[in-house]
């Protein structure tokens, strides 16, 4: 297995190390809490000559992503990162690299959306990005933040992929927390992510027109081609994670489970809260409940097969949402229900909303959700409507 060293690193610094080891050419970013430590560390690396890259200190997130698009079209390996409002401001531009097949790599330090203003973590920003056509995955700790960022380059730049890729980390919970992690040697990472040549680069030697407009006679064909290509990226994602495991010894899968072998009740989470959820599962098991945990690692393309497989023996699925789809409930819960429609009519699905705007979710909260979900499932059996419950809210 690969050489490396155990270090204590903040999540932001771990991501900066991945960007440095990838020998990134162009970084374009605008500061926003809680992403700032990533860009500050990258700026330091460039100032100290540890990273040979152009850092474009743009005047907005809209321009940050626009510059990434330009740099990527000119053949550079590019990186940006943002959070919350920043992702909202760059929203319009996020559709461009996915429709023009530009392998931009980005990290989102997940943050609540205004108003009221909140710099703290939730997944409101993630849920606004569901349809942007980017490969998206979740990290639960700093090691994963590093590993998945390394993988993001390899996945995005694969000639059969060429889609932008985003790694989600929970703002503050990962970006500002120091944890032990294995930092591999530079050369191993460099070998893992070889230099790449973008096939349609902007070059006066070989003129191309990029971004021609598409009237109704061609637009649907262009979008179908994009969707077919996007769905086909999953095999390359799995291939890359397998190769990562062979090189670095750490396993990643689209859907990951914890104590699910004989579980009849499953909790579903995404991101850093999954580690708290594991502790809750341990305690509930000690109390005699056959509970397990399902974590969505790959968010887009949605891992239908793996997810259905993970819940095949479950009777009650409890979904945690860290965002609200106003007038609709929890967005992840809605997606999960749609993924299971016609597949598992006997499965009860109960959604909770918690941990928005940086409100902590405790082990006790998870215990409450599991017990309350059982009651709600009974109510559903009686034919009653159940509303999505927001927990831990003072009323």
């Amino acid at each position, binding site marked *: 297995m690969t050489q490396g060293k155990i270090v204590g690193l903040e999540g932001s610094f771990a991501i900066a190390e991945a960007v440095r080891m990838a020998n990134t050419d162009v970084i374009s970013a605008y500061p926003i809490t809680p992403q700032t430590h990533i860009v500050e560390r990258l700026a330091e690396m460039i100032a100290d000559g540890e990273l040979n890259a152009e850092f474009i200190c*743009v005047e907005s997130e809209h321009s940050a992503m626009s510059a990434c698009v330009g740099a990527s079209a000119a053949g550079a390996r590019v990186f940006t990162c943002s959070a919350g409002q920043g992702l909202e401001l760059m929203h319009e531009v996020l559709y461009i690299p996915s429709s023009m097949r530009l392998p931009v790599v980005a990290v989102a330090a997940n943050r609540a959306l205004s108003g009221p203003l909140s710099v703290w973590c939730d997944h409101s920003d993630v849920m606004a990005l569901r349809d942007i056509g980017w490969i998206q995955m979740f990290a639960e700790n700093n090691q994963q933040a590093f590993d998945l960022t390394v993988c993001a380059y390899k996945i995005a730049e694969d000639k059969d992929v060429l889609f932008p890729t985003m790694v989600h980390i929970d703002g503050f919970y990962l970006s500002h927390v120091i944890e032990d992690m294995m930092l591999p040697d530079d050369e191993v990472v460099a070998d893992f992510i070889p230099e790449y040549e973008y096939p349609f680069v902007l070059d006066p030697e070989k*003129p*191309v*027109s990029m971004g*021609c407009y598409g009237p109704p006679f*061609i637009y649907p064909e262009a979008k179908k081609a994009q969707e077919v290509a996007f769905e086909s990226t999953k095999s390359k994602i799995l291939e890359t994670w397998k190769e990562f495991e062979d090189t670095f010894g750490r396993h990643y899968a689209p859907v990951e489970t914890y104590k699910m072998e004989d579980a009849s009740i499953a909790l579903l989470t995404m991101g850093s809260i999954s580690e708290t959820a594991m502790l809750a599962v341990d305690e509930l098991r000690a109390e005699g409940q056959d509970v397990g945990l399902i974590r969505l690692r790959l968010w887009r393309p949605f891992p239908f097969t793996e997810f259905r497989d993970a819940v095949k023996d479950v009777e009650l699925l409890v979904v945690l949402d860290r965002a609200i789809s106003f007038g609709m409930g929890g967005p992840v819960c809605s997606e999960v229900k749609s993924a299971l429609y016609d597949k598992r009519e006997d499965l009860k699905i109960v959604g909770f909303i918690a941990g928005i705007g940086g409100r902590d979710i405790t082990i006790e909260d998870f215990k409450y959700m599991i017990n309350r979900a059982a009651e709600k499932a009974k109510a559903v059996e009686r034919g009653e409507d159940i509303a999505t419950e927001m927990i831990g809210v003072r009323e």
Partner: protein
Amino acid sequence: MEGEISEMEREEEDLFVPRLITTEENFAPGHRACIGCGEALAVRHVCKALGKNVIIVNATGCIEIFSSLFPQTSWQVPWIHTLFENVAAVMSGIESAYKARIRKGKIEDRRVKFVGFGGDGATADIGLQPLSGAMERGHDFLYCCFDNEAYMNTGIQRSSSTPYGAWTTTAPVGKKSIGQMTWKKNLPEIAVAHRIPYVATACPSYPFDLMDKVKRGVEMTGPAYVHILSVCPTGWRSSPEQTIEIGRLAVETGVFPLYEVINGEYRLSVDVPRLKPVKEYMKDQRRFRHLTDDVIAEIQARVETEYAKLKEKAGVK
């Protein structure tokens, strides 16, 4: 008078200068611009001046629409369009990619010209922030604003570059409105305020001047900005065959003076010792036909004041 050329010199220029200009078209004909489009003509001249060693970034707008209907393209040079407001930011990325990749030995060392194209809406309104950012950061690029003085592609809505008193669909003429109620935003002066090496105004009615300025701008290291008045028969309600004449009248009346600012030094490109009345410029444009003599007098006074200020900056008596 300095800058003025004799009738004989002008004849010589008319005879010989066109022969010095490349017959190569980097912006191919067959595009879908309106008849008499001053902007398409300007783009053609600009592309002749730029040559082949260039990457063009284009904003959403008339140029992008009439030149790039998939699967056809007028562009014989690398060209990219993404969105409306982000030309200068996309260009910043392309320029930085070249800089980094050359420095890292990933591509051969060469100077490629990076050029942004945008209309007045994309430049003066929605894309002003990215443009300001790119100029402030000092990327090596030329930005050409093709100013047809309204959102023509969406149907003649007013922009901050629409002149005072002009009719547009969102500044209509009515009992309580003379059309555009605000004075045209001075984009070249905003560019000058960024202390960039090169700023110029141009018009395809003066093709050699336009091409010279594009060449000068693109040869400079650092940001360069050329603001090109582009007569729009569709939006200005003028006759297509008058496009060149109206462009000339814009200059001869002082409505749109041609000048350049090289490292902060102003120079008038075409000095007009005695300005023609603005009415001459306005008379064949139906966007101005509702204006009363009082309003025209107001515009006349403003043009004269502005022209005098410009002459003072250029040191012309």
